[in-house]
């Protein structure tokens, strides 16, 4: 295990994974404070894919396909703690339910969606059918829902279920290519995704209605996260983090890390957890 290199200052940040490290960019309102972008964690021999954040304990969680493993570390510094190290092959998506203290992940080789407590205990398989290349997964703790996407080239889809695995439903299967990134904004109740096949960012209501295109003709998105009126996505071809304004449907900014290589998962670190109530948390 290895402590972090530069603890993060208070405020909201973007966290994203790049070859051998997890970087952070402070957010000043909606704009990226690019001059202050730094490595949060050096993981020199690892390939981190998904990044997620627990707003309660202020911990960053990530999946690593070289271990393979799921680990966490505090934003304030400290050691890396391994949480899941067995029976994983290619964990590429990670969601945190900060209310019920659970994590959910996808594995594109085992073709599964699994759940465990945030310390890695009480692990269960939630789904192991009709999954080919599951990748992004997000949680909506206040409604107890899960959303995920599968980029299966013979039938890409976006699905949802309750967090206990009941009521699994396909939300989108038309006009999808490679839905690599997915994000849910609890405030506006919008489910948005980034598709490297159709080269679009699209949003809709979580029931599948009112689908609309935010931006199109984009390069090669991998992951996406929402923050207020903005969406931020990582792009493999541009090797950049791109900011998109959801209200004007325009790209507003980009961050090019000093190191030129593909960028993977992305997450935000809100200063407070969204206000919500969950029956299971009591």
């Amino acid at each position, binding site marked *: 295990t290895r402590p972090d290199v530069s603890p993060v200052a208070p405020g909201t940040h973007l966290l994203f994974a790049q*070859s*051998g490290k997890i970087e952070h960019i402070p957010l000043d309102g909606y704009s990226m404070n690019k001059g202050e972008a730094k490595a949060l964690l050096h993981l020199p021999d690892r390939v981190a894919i998904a990044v997620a954040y627990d707003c309660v304990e202020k911990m960053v969680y990530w999946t690593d396909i070289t271990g393979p493993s799921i680990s966490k570390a505090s934003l304030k510094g400290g050691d890396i703690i391994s949480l899941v190290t067995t029976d994983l092959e290619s964990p590429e998506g990670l969601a945190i339910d900060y209310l019920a203290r659970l994590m959910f992940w996808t594995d594109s080789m085992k073709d599964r969606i699994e759940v465990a407590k945030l310390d890695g205990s009480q692990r269960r398989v939630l789904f192991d059918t009709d999954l080919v290349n599951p990748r992004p997964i997000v949680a909506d703790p206040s409604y107890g829902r899960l959303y995920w996407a599968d980029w299966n080239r013979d039938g890409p889809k976006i699905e949802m279920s309750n967090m206990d695995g009941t009521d699994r439903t396909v939300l989108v299967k038309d006009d999808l290519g490679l839905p690599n990134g997915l994000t849910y904004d609890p405030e506006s109740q919008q489910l948005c995704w980034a598709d490297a096949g159709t080269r679009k960012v699209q949003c809709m209501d979580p029931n599948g209605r009112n689908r609309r295109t935010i931006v199109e003709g984009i390069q090669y998105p991998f992951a996406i996260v929402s923050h207020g009126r903005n969406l931020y996505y990582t792009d493999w071809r541009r090797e950049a983090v791109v900011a998109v304004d959801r209200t004007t449907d325009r790209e507003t900014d980009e961050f090019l890390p000093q190191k030129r290589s593909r960028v993977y998962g992305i997450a935000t670190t809100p200063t407070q957890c969204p206000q919500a109530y969950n029956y299971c948390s009591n």
Partner: protein
Amino acid sequence: DSTVGSSSDCKPCPCPGGSTCAVVPKTKEVVCTNCPTGTTGKRCELCDDGFFGDPLGENGQVRVCRACKCSDNIDPNAVGNCDRETGECLKCIYNTDGFFCDRCKEGFYGNPLATNANDKCKACSCSPYGTVDRQTSCLQVTGQCQCFPHVTNRDCSACQPGFFNLRSGTGCEQCNCNSIGSTN
């Protein structure tokens, strides 16, 4: 550590091309922070995801990082397609397998290097009645399953002329038709 006060406090970063490094506070471990394009690792000794090689020549000759070489049988949208050092392909698709995704996986046959995905590897589908030990694998190129005596076809699904009872599970039996009463 620049606070000790000796002339050897600061040492050059042990990183290729004089690139930058950082000292991890707790462990005092030195980590390169700006490895040359395509490389990563504590000392830039590894290739980025999707590439393989040995950029510092740690295990023999220097091998620059190159994109995974998997016979066009990997998906570019996948991550972790090959071992970053050896190049062993880890995510073969189209029912291929092997170090370079250059053969059909167990239970499949055909030409893994065909340009059209449909012409690549097909399932052996050996007949469970006509195949020895109910094997599910077949010869790589022709797809011939291993048939019981007097059983024929690639998939061992039929008896040779003059034989019957494929379903015996031990091979086909001679018809023994009386030559006087039979038409052939």
